């Protein structure tokens, strides 16, 4: 009854595996330890520590950066669920700082102001796993090629408008369906067209799904939004401003968790949606100027 194997850490299996444990769950944006505890009590599968929620980043303007390490340490001390944190696109030193703090996952996020307009972080070299945003299959597979162990569709963060999240999830799922029916020579041409590594295009075609866990994000504000994203094929939901910018965060958080679990049970979604109070105010994406869209960040 003794083990006889060497111990390997930080493998792809272990990095992707944590995302698999989050499936069917909700990852909630929090800016304080108190919010993190509310999220955990409501049934969050993980929390995302950041300096300001996307709605405030949008309202305040200026440069959005990694959160204060002190805040991240406070949040880590407050909860037992995994703690994720955001770094700027391409800011590998922010990523190293977050890794040194012992965060469980890093989100290299378009919600923060990009630090590099050409390069993303070379994520394979890190011990900590990364999640990245995508709008289509090519972008997702480029990020996985760089070492991302989880992806999420970008949506349009801080708006409370789910339309972009739907657009991106539909696009990704449709492209995954298409490649399953392609011949090998068509896959070569398609990989070139979507600027994705060929081996990952072939892997996704063979699996019939994204090679890593794929959550939805960016504009999910209600239990019905959360269930909609699951119905479109998402593995789980990130909810940012939608919870702590609403009238009753604890109740809304619980409702979104329940709707994510029971996404096929519309009667239950109706039940948890009753008397939830004010949702976040929201900004219609159609009213945004192109330069105000965060989803265009990332290359």
């Amino acid at each position, binding site marked *: *009854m*003794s*083990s*006889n*194997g*060497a*111990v*390997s*850490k*930080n*493998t792809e*299996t*272990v990095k992707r*595996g*944590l995302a*698999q*444990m*989050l*499936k*069917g*769950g909700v990852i909630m944006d929090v800016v304080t330890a108190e919010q993190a505890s509310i999220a*955990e009590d409501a*049934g*969050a*599968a*993980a929390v995302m520590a950041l300096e300001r929620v996307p709605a405030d980043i949008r309202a305040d303007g200026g440069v959005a950066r990694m959160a204060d390490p002190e805040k991240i340490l406070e949040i880590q001390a407050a909860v*037992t*669920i*995994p703690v994720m944190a955001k770094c700027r696109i391409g800011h590998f030193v922010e990523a190293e700082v977050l*890794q040194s703090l*012992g*965060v*469980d*996952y890093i989100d290299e996020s378009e919600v923060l102001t990009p630090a590099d307009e050409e390069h993303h972080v070379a994520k394979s070299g890190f*011990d*900590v*796993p990364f999640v990245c945003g995508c709008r289509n299959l090519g972008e997702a597979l480029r990020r996985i090629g760089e070492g991302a162990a989880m992806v999420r569709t970008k949506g349009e963060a801080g708006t409370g408008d789910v339309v972009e999240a739907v657009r991106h999830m539909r696009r990704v799922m449709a492209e995954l369906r298409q490649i399953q029916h392609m011949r090998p020579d068509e896959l070569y041409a398609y990989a070139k067209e979507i600027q994705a590594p060929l081996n990952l295009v072939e892997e996704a075609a063979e699996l019939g799904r994204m090679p890593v866990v794929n959550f939805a994000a960016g504009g999910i504000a209600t239990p019905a939004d959360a269930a909609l994203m699951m119905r479109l094929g998402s593995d789980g939901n990130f909810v940012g401003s939608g919870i702590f910018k609403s009238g009753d965060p604890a109740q809304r958080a619980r409702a979104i*968790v*329940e709707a994510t*679990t*029971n996404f096929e*049970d519309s009667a239950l979604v109706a039940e948890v949606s009753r008397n939830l109070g004010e949702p976040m105010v929201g900004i219609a994406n159609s009213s945004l100027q192109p330069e105000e869209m965060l989803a265009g960040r990332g290359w």
Partner: protein
Amino acid sequence: MSVRIGVLALQGDFAEHGAMLGRLDAEPVEVRQPSDLDGIAGLIIPGGESTTIGKLMERYALRGPIQALAEAGKPIWGTCAGLILMARDVGRCQPLLNLLDITVERNAFGRQTDSFETDLEIEGINGGPFHAVFIRAPIVRAVGPGVRVLSRLDDGTIVAVRHGRLFGTSFHPELTGDARLHASFVEMARHA
């Protein structure tokens, strides 16, 4: 004959367990409410976040019916978060099933960067070591009377236990290609 095995599907990697069962002569059944437990021969409680699964288990009044399943002699197996949920004591207040007389320490190895893979010898599993994936894994600190230790790490840490037809593993056989533990569980359920 194909045997129906429930997989608690409130949150976590229940689909991975379902895929493993699908490779065997078993029909996976996703369990979200008490009526889903009708007619199953055994239950798997998957990996995930034990606080999330526990709260939803309480919300949908699944605790009593799962405990009744155990009392009726049906096999139940918890992996990682599932092991935590089956424990009597985890050192903090959270909803538990109290099925195994064990004391569990959550996140016992540290944070995600301390997650690891290794090979294990497991009592009752023949054909060489079992490749085990530990992710923010719990360990069993103490076992009560009647609880048998099935596997330990080199340093003696307990990572698999059994009491009658109740099993708990700190690691995730559903993340490997090795279906031996699932096969052994399905066989027990078939004859239970």
